[in-house]
């Protein structure tokens, strides 16, 4: 673009300030009440169904002229029932969303209110979350992300085809080899639903009109370039103009962060089936942030309510892809172990998955191949300077030079529905690439009538395959952002199948007795049948019968319970056999 540096800086500064205001939902004051309090909030105020004294809290709310609303929208009873139906165990603990509340109050009062609320006996935690933001800015104009200036030249009568500029579609290692996926049945994301959670979108864009469901919850912002770019990467239409998405046959919808982020995640999860995908295009200011731009911004699962909202989606079998954030931070840093004063006493750092695991797939930003669009951001697949890194991060996508819809720097003019960009960036541009790859895989599996990837299996295959991260000066590959997906490898892995049989256990059952065995840690995606045979001959009549019961012990594993009855008058030796039929 032929603008002087001076004028560019001036334009960008003004535009950036406006964009930030439009994207903000604002700080959130979240309250977690003690489960034993049995609190319920109604239009008349708060009450306890378990006899807890709610008067002090009621008085506080009244004196401060504030209200307290269930964060997750539905009634406490409904939320409790949902949690009960989904499980509690140490590995797959399903959050009780009924204990979360949002305080509606002026933003400048939130910190003081949190202190007052923490003094209440029935309050377990009260904390203020910084506003969530998309990765739009990063401080000074020379290194800003996603602050492109639209071209003033009107679009031609017919938009050119920009697909050759979408190097991320190309064969690995430079791209993710989406074109290979497209040759396989379902590999364009057929029968897969994806919901992008962020702020604004242009679903009337000329390249986003097929297979889209629009905004299904919340109110879209007028700051719509970011979301338009994201869904372009995932689901841009198949046609002769503009761009093509990675999984264009997937149905892409949106939930707007015109509500608390955790509420939005639950809204999205409730609209999806197992195997569908949620994308979280948000990060927020974490501990130790400098205050300069988005320095120190981190993935949102660090906050308790967002973690539990993600866990809620995961427990429903929905894959959640989460931007790692553009905060320049090592997420393994001990600073993230320090529990903020308002967090629950039981809180532990979720960035260390040995503490607890949200189940999300966390995505970092890697450099595209050098000379993409004539520019160089370091060695291919090296960590980009702004991208957070750490053991938590599962995979990377292009964090620079992403050609997609929106922004108008590649094709601009007066009609925003014709805008395209060559330079969408950040963990914002990286995450949709991973979502697109997963959309292709789920489409392939569904086309074959196979079980779609569970959240845990999706993470497992992404970590097991792909083009490896590379070193850059000052940014070694030990600063983990994971591999770039490779759909040729991924499709081979998820579509492969196998068959084998074996004997799992042997035993003896007394006459006319029933005994039960269990066998655990069987991968949930394996198709398994069980048979039992006697091993001591006794001709003349049946000796045994058996019944199989099944327990989904976690997202990843199944436990089988085999009940075997000796129907004879003598002890019988048995052998329990399994057949793995495929997956």
């Amino acid at each position, binding site marked *: 673009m032929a603008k002087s540096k001076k004028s560019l800086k001036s334009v960008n500064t003004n535009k950036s300030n406006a964009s930030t205001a439009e994207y903000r939902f604002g700080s959130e004051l979240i309250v977690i009440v003690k489960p034993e309090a049995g609190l319920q909030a109604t239009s008349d105020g708060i009450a306890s169904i378990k006899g807890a004294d709610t008067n002090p809290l009621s008085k506080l709310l009244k004196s401060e002229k504030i209200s307290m609303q269930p964060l997750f929208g539905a009634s406490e009873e409904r939320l409790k029932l949902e949690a*009960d*139906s*989904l*499980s*509690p*165990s140490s*590995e*797959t603990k*399903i959050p009780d969303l009924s204990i979360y509340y949002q305080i509606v109050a002026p933003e400048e009062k939130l910190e003081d209110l949190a202190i007052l609320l923490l003094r209440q006996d029935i309050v377990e935690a009260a904390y203020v979350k910084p506003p969530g933001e998309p990765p739009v800015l990063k401080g000074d104009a020379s290194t800003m992300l996603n602050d492109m200036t639209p071209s003033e030249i009107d679009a031609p009568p017919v938009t050119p085809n920009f697909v050759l500029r979408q190097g991320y579609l190309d064969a690995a290692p430079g791209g993710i080899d989406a074109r290979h996926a497209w040759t396989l049945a379902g590999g364009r994301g057929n029968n897969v639903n994806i919901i992008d959670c962020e702020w604004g979108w242009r679903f009337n864009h000329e390249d986003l009109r097929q297979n889209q469901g629009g905004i299904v919850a919340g109110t879209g912002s007028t700051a719509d370039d970011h979301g338009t770019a994201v869904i372009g990467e995932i689901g841009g239409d198949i046609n002769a103009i503009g761009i093509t998405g990675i999984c264009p046959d997937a149905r892409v919808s949106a939930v707007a962060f015109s509500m608390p982020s955790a509420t939005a995640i639950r809204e999205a999860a409730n609209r999806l*089936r*197992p195997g569908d995908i949620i994308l979280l295009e948000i990060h927020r200011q974490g501990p130790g942030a400098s205050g300069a731009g988005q320095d120190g911004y981190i993935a949102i699962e660090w906050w308790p309510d967002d973690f539990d909202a993600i866990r809620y989606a995961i*427990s*429903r*079998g929905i894959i959640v892809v989460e931007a790692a954030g553009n905060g320049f931070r090592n997420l393994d840093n001990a600073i993230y172990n320090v529990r903020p004063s308002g967090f629950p006493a039981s809180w532990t750092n979720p960035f260390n998955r040995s503490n607890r695991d949200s189940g999300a797939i966390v995505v970092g930003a890697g450099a595209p191949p050098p000379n993409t669009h004539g520019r160089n951001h370091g060695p291919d697949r090296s960590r980009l300077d702004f991208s957070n890194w750490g053991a938590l991060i599962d995979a990377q996508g292009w964090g620079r030079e992403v050609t997609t819809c929106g922004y108008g720097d590649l094709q601009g003019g007066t009609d925003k529905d014709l805008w395209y960009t060559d330079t969408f960036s950040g963990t914002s541009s990286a995450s949709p690439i991973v979502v697109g790859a997963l959309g292709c895989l789920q489409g392939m599996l569904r086309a*074959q*009538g*196979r*079980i779609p990837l569970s959240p845990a299996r999706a993470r497992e295959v992404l970590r097991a395959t792909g083009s490896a991260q590379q070193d850059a000066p000052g940014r070694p590959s030990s600063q983990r952002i994971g591999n770039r997906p490779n759909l040729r490898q991924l499709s081979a892995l998820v579509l492969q*199948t196998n*068959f084998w049989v074996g004997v799992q256990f042997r035993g003896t059952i007394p006459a006319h007795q029933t005994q039960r065995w269990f066998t655990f840690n069987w991968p*949930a995606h394996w*198709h*398994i*049948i069980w048979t039992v045979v006697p091993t001591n001959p006794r001709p003349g009549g049946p000796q045994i019968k058996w*019944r*199989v*019961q*099944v*327990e*989904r*012990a*976690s*997202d990843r594993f*199944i*436990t089988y*319970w085999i009940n075997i009855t000796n129907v004879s008058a003598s002890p019988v030796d048995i052998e329990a056999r399994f057949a793995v*039929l*495929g*997956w």
Partner: protein
Amino acid sequence: MRVGVQFTGTLAAGQTQRWFTFNWPQQWHVVWYVVPTSPRSGAPQIEWSVEVERGSSTNITYWITIKNLTPVSVNIEARYAVLN
């Protein structure tokens, strides 16, 4: 051999529900099995039984009866394998 998922569903606490699936070619050797998809560890969640109807000379209908053994609702996935 081919494996797949024929249907998914939800059973209320303690509920038993029967599904049927029809027009399966009679020459196919099919086995059925069911797994929960909502984790709840510590005890069995479901069991199932299969009944079979010869819908016509060429087709078979399978009736899958699934029982929720728990006091809360459970999501299930009915899987099949065609062995030949």
